[in-house]
């Protein structure tokens, strides 16, 4: 496919917002251009579960009318936004890619969506994901898998695969994801876009369907670091509806974006850079980033964070344990699917049997077991102790370094169906991203070119201290400049 003539869909969010503000283009025109591109190409990519054409057009018309009345426009006025289907939207169904919630319309907007609508963003549709965000390839969607725009025979990563693919394919310049163990960063890497996981508590979880509450955090996808920062500033900040939301106002990130990395101490995490099964091109990308950071004036060294090796094991106890409880509400009583049965308990069981996919059931069982009397301390308790250890190890590393670096994913995008037979192999995709999640800290995945062998995007992960999005974004911007890549735009090709 070719985007020729489709001038608007190649632009950044910041650029589009400026054009709309100036009146160079209307919000309706911007929305139409993206809707047309979706109509033309999403049949192959399948990144959207639902495209809200009428709703998007109405919202865009609202922005244009506000401008016509001379009202001040928000920072994202007229910018199309793709929303992972974990966020409640009152005008569009919210399914979490699960049959159990098929057709459910929330009575309310999530705080993040409400804030972004207030900032002028146009919600263009809800994107596909692994059911309830459980997975690393979007193949666990209860409806259909999403393809990677760079190679339609490969996965986009997951669980926010639909959002990453939608931004990569320029169906929207911005998208929302959620990241529990890496669900923003890993698909960002596999699709060649920027994805940020903010510090736990920075972004309100209110209205985001819970998978693992102590780990879930929403974040932005964009094609540039500046757009990532723009979306982040419009969505984060304290929310009284989320008790775990951090009360203090975050430090603005856009203002310091161009401050560079001169004098910054950057550590390459040994255990993750040389993780088992790492693809040589991915390892090489980390090495080249090292050179580029040094060129830009940073001090780069390697650092050991030994406990990260236990991250996956701890994650796959804590996340399923919380999920087993969070997903108990899908019982057919109040909303969503109800499978008929003679008695309430049988109805609950039949509903859950019919409505949940295999991976969701697997994690509910794992988590239920881990919390059971007599096993709690050996599993959940032990996993929490590992979590404490990881936090402590990171704190030690941050005594000597301002920022840590690793691959985002050990490999580039893998083939559809390649890992579905073996859940453990699939879980290994999260090995580099899980430690930051457990530490409650922030990390970003930045595209750093295409692997020479397979021509697929490679991502590098920049990890910051909790609350230090400023340094992460500043360093990402510096690396983006040094890389000087052309805006990565996949040619959507049909698999052989």
């Amino acid at each position: 496919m070719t985007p020729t003539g489709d001038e608007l869909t190649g632009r950044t969010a910041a650029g589009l917002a400026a054009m709309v503000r100036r009146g160079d283009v209307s919000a309706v025109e911007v929305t139409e251009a993206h809707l047309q591109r979706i109509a033309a190409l999403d049949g192959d990519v399948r990144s959207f579960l639902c495209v809200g054409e009428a709703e998007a057009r109405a919202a865009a018309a609202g922005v244009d009318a506000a401008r016509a009345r001379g009202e001040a426009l928000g920072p994202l006025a007229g910018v199309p936004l793709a929303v992972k289907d974990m966020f409640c939207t009152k005008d569009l169904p919210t399914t979490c890619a699960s049959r159990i919630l098929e057709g459910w319309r929330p009575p309310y907007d999530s705080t993040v969506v409400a804030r972004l609508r207030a900032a002028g963003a146009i919600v263009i549709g809800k994107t596909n994901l692994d059911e309830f965000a459980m997975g690393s390839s979007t193949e666990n969607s209860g409806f259909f898998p999403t393809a990677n725009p760079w190679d339609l025979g490969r996965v986009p990563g997951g669980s926010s695969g639909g959002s990453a693919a939608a931004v990569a394919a320029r169906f929207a310049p911005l998208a929302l994801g959620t990241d529990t163990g890496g669900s923003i960063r890993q698909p960002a890497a596999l699709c060649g876009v920027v994805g940020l996981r903010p510090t736990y508590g920075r972004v309100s979880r209110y209205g985001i369907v819970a998978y693992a509450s102590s780990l879930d955090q929403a974040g932005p996808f964009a094609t540039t670091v500046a757009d990532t920062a723009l979306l982040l500033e419009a969505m984060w900040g304290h929310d009284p509806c989320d008790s775990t939301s951090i009360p203090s106002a975050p430090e603005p990130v856009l203002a310091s974006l161009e401050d560079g990395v001169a004098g910054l101490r950057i550590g390459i995490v040994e255990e993750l850079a040389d993780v088992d099964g790492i693809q040589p091109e991915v390892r090489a990308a980390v090495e080249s980033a090292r050179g580029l950071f040094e060129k830009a004036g940073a001090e780069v060294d390697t650092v050991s964070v030994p406990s990260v090796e236990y991250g996956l094991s701890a994650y796959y106890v804590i996340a399923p344990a919380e999920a087993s409880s969070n997903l108990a509400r899908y019982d057919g009583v109040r909303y969503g699917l109800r499978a008929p049965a003679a008695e309430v308990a049988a109805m609950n069981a039949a509903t859950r049997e019919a409505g949940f996919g295999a991976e969701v059931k697997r994690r509910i069982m794992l988590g239920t077991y881990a919390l059971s009397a007599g096993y709690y301390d050996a599993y959940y308790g032990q996993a929490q102790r590992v979590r404490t250890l990881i936090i402590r190890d990171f704190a030690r590393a941050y005594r000597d370094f301002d920022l840590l670096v690793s691959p985002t994913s050990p490999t580039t995008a893998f083939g559809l169906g390649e890992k579905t037979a073996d859940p453990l192999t699939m879980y290994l995709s999260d090995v580099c991203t899980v430690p930051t999640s457990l530490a409650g800290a922030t990390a970003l995945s930045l595209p750093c070119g295409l692997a020479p062998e397979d021509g697929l995007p490679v991502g590098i992960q920049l990890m910051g201290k909790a609350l230090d999005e400023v340094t992460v974004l500043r360093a990402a911007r510096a690396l983006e400049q040094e890389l000087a890549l052309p805006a990565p735009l996949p040619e959507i090709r049909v698999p052989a």
Partner: protein
Amino acid sequence: MTGEAGAGLGQELITTIGLEIHVELATRTKMFCGCPVAFGGEPNTRVCQVCLGHPGTLPVPNAEAIAYAAKIGMALGCAIAPSSIFHRKNYFYPDMPKNYQISQYDIPLCTGGAVAIETDGVPAAVGITRVHLEEDTGKSLHMGGGGRIHGADYSLEDFNRAGTPLVEIVTEPDMHSADQARAFATELRATLEALEVSDIRMEEGSMRFDANISMAPPGRLGAKVEVKNLNSLRSLHRALAYEEQRQREVLGDGGTIEQSTRHWDERAGVTRPLRTKEHAFDYRYFPEPDLVAIEPPADWLESIAASLPELPAARRRRFEEQFGLSAYDAGVLVASRPAAAYFEAAVAAGRKAEPKEVANWLANDLVGLLTKRGESIEACAIPPEHLAELVDLVAGGEISRLQGREVLDDMAAAGAGGPPPAAIVEKKGLRQLSGGDELAAVLDEVIAANPDVWARLRAGDTKPEGFLFGQVMRATKGQANPSAVRNLLKTRLDG
């Protein structure tokens, strides 16, 4: 105590009872959302996405509920934890929207208090293990199949109650009889009433009891039986008395009591098995990740402590000291907060009457009358000033006690806005002849009309005294002061 020789059948068994009490807090809004707290109403009208457990919703703790729970803890002598946390209690039930209940588990808000009780003049202390916060469930209505969930044709769910703040108060196993358990529950109820933190309407389920009871020879512990569905002080007492008797019979017959849960059937007056230990739930408690620790600031706790009202024990002591009431009378009045308040208002309004007399009129006459009329002291139409006036009229000798009761009946019948007792006395022409010429004249007439009787009395036979007395009362239409008549009669006989 005969020690070893006493072992075996017929040996002494010690009863051990511990209570868990759930109390709905009368906060303005629910525990974790802004829906109003109230009883009843159209089903599913006081609900929102949070208390319905819709996907994506999060709980935000109600500061007023935490303050109320801290108040209860302080009143029961508990320490308030500088940091306490919520847990999730996981189990499936259709009236529980999230299929887990947000509750407190190993680090509750309040721990380690005690309540003094007394039964048959014997004092005892009941330890308070903990007071913690949680959320209530909705209500299920199972249609068909005997009203139980199993076998029902269908169930209706009302989530108006879902998310109402609850405190759970857990006692130490310090009670040893149904009487003690009732005494504790009565004291707790009075304390909660004084704190104004709950409606404590048991018939509406705002205070509910679970009891754990075991029986064993001295020095040993028996298997614990939990009795559920105790919704009044009366059912608490009946169920425990029943269960004590049942366990005594089982053990006496050489049987064993299994650790189990039983359901109190109020109508049949029996407990029935619900589940045994093997079928106990595994609630898979874990710390609630959607909430942060409750860390009440010290000055906030101090202001709560400073706002605590006079508690029942202190009020009883004051009633005894300030008003000279007996421990019994003070206990009766203080057990009901409205009665105590009514009493104080009446005493303050009275001029001649002793507080002791006011207490008698209130506890014996007025409360009895209201009960007969199906009314309550809270909504009593007779203002305390009127009762005080009535007691004054009797104490001043203007009317007799018997006449006083008649006036009280009229006052109650007149309802709110009725005339004061003096006006009723006036209107009915009631008065008491307490001496003077009028009463003496009546007596002389009676003596003159009954010369034989008078002669027998003069001769030392006391038997006809009652007859003469009755004649005087009849002649005065009951208005004669009995002691004045007796005195006058004595004067005549001596004279």
